[in-house]
């Protein structure tokens, strides 16, 4: 865990020193809510529509963060320095996935508040515990798949194209599960209980992609 912590600490320090991913994701999310507000011509959303708008916006915002995930390594030559260290490359995967997870969680603190202010009809407070659980599982999916795809894309010239083209189809099941799971929480009639089926699907998705990433990450980093 020690190399993973060193790598994670470095990524957090770099983002604090020269913020890139978090401001971009934040600005994108809030702008998208404003666009939905005017585009849909509605002041309030609820139920499935609200859940869909929230999760799709977060998914697209995450693509920005995924695109930047390995850029500091590549642009600054640090990647070779890390590759020369006697560490298991899984440590790099864990650190990058953890960094992306934390970035997404931070972005969501502001984004969900903005969503509640700009678009959400029902009060967000009763839905909050369930929503946090669903978003945490969705962030897990975005972080795992995003790190894999970002590592795949970083060695290609068309990095900015590869990330959305590969990541979005892979993330469709996670998006469906998150949106369906969140819909009852955001119902106009008040927060219902979370459908456990969708939670289980999200958790299973995270587990499968976690294992898959563990198995293939080394090969993605081979030249």
């Amino acid at each position, binding site marked *: 865990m020690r190399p993973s912590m060193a790598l994670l600490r470095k990524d957090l320090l770099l983002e604090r020193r020269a913020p890139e991913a978090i401001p971009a994701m934040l600005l994108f999310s809030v702008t998208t809510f404003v666009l939905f507000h005017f585009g849909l011509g509605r002041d309030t959303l609820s139920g499935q529509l609200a859940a869909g708008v929230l999760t799709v916006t977060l998914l697209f915002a995450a693509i920005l963060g995924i695109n930047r995930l390995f850029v500091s390594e590549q642009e600054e030559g640090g990647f070779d320095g890390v590759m020369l260290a006697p560490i298991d490359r899984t440590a790099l995967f864990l650190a990058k996935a953890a960094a992306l997870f934390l970035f997404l969680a931070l972005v969501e603190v502001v984004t969900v508040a903005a969503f509640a202010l700009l678009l959400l009809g029902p009060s967000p407070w009763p839905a909050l515990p369930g929503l946090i659980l669903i978003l945490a599982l969705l962030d897990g999916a975005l972080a795992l798949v995003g790190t894999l795809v970002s590592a795949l894309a970083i060695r290609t010239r068309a990095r900015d194209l590869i990330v959305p083209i590969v990541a979005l189809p892979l993330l469709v099941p996670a998006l469906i599960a998150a949106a369906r799971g969140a819909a009852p929480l955001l119902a106009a009639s008040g927060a219902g209980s979370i459908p456990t089926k969708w939670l289980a699907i999200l958790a299973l998705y995270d587990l499968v992609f976690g294992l898959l990433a563990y198995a293939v990450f080394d090969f993605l980093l081979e*030249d």
Partner: protein
Amino acid sequence: MDATPAIELRGLARRYGERWALDDVTVDVPAGATLVVFGPNGAGKSTLLRVLATLLRPHAGEARVLGSPLPDRAWDVRGRVGLLAHEALLYRDLSARENLRFHARLHRVAQARVEELLERLRLGGRADDPVRTLSKGLLQRVAVCRAVLHDPPLLLLDEPRANLDPAAAALIEPLIGRASGRTRVVTSHDPAGGLAEADYALGLRDGRVALSAPAERIEHAAIEELYR
């Protein structure tokens, strides 16, 4: 100098796409010896260093570094080589101290070693400035600290004195020069300076070996011929 080879290459080849950057390179370097690699730009010098550093896989031939065959046991080699490349391999927005502390953690080296190196290379005054604000010479000094931080037995040095003034070159000498006692592979464009520090010389042209012999048997003119 130990007669056991630290590096054994037999017919080593590496290509980028269709172009062979290295082709049929054979050379032995005994432990503790210095191999200086000469050749014009694009001859394959940096590619050779990257293969030896395990950053690139050989596409043909055999490579054995510090007793471990590549790429099968690259894991055993990582952590025992120090690479000083054209890029500093540092994070521009972190300071020299932060960069070195980060690498010290990855290599499980005591943080005291970072302070020792900063002191030795007289970087103390600028150690907390982001490395993007450092001059090329200072950046090269930080890169030298990174390369020797974990006290590697094999140093791979790509034009190590580029951007350094004579005083700075003298400062890094005990760490990466012959006096360091490490096995070294050094690239150079300077026939006189290169041969002076070489035990063996290798000349590359278009990825192929054009010259390979103990340094004392090589004339400057033969090196200069590589660049014509």
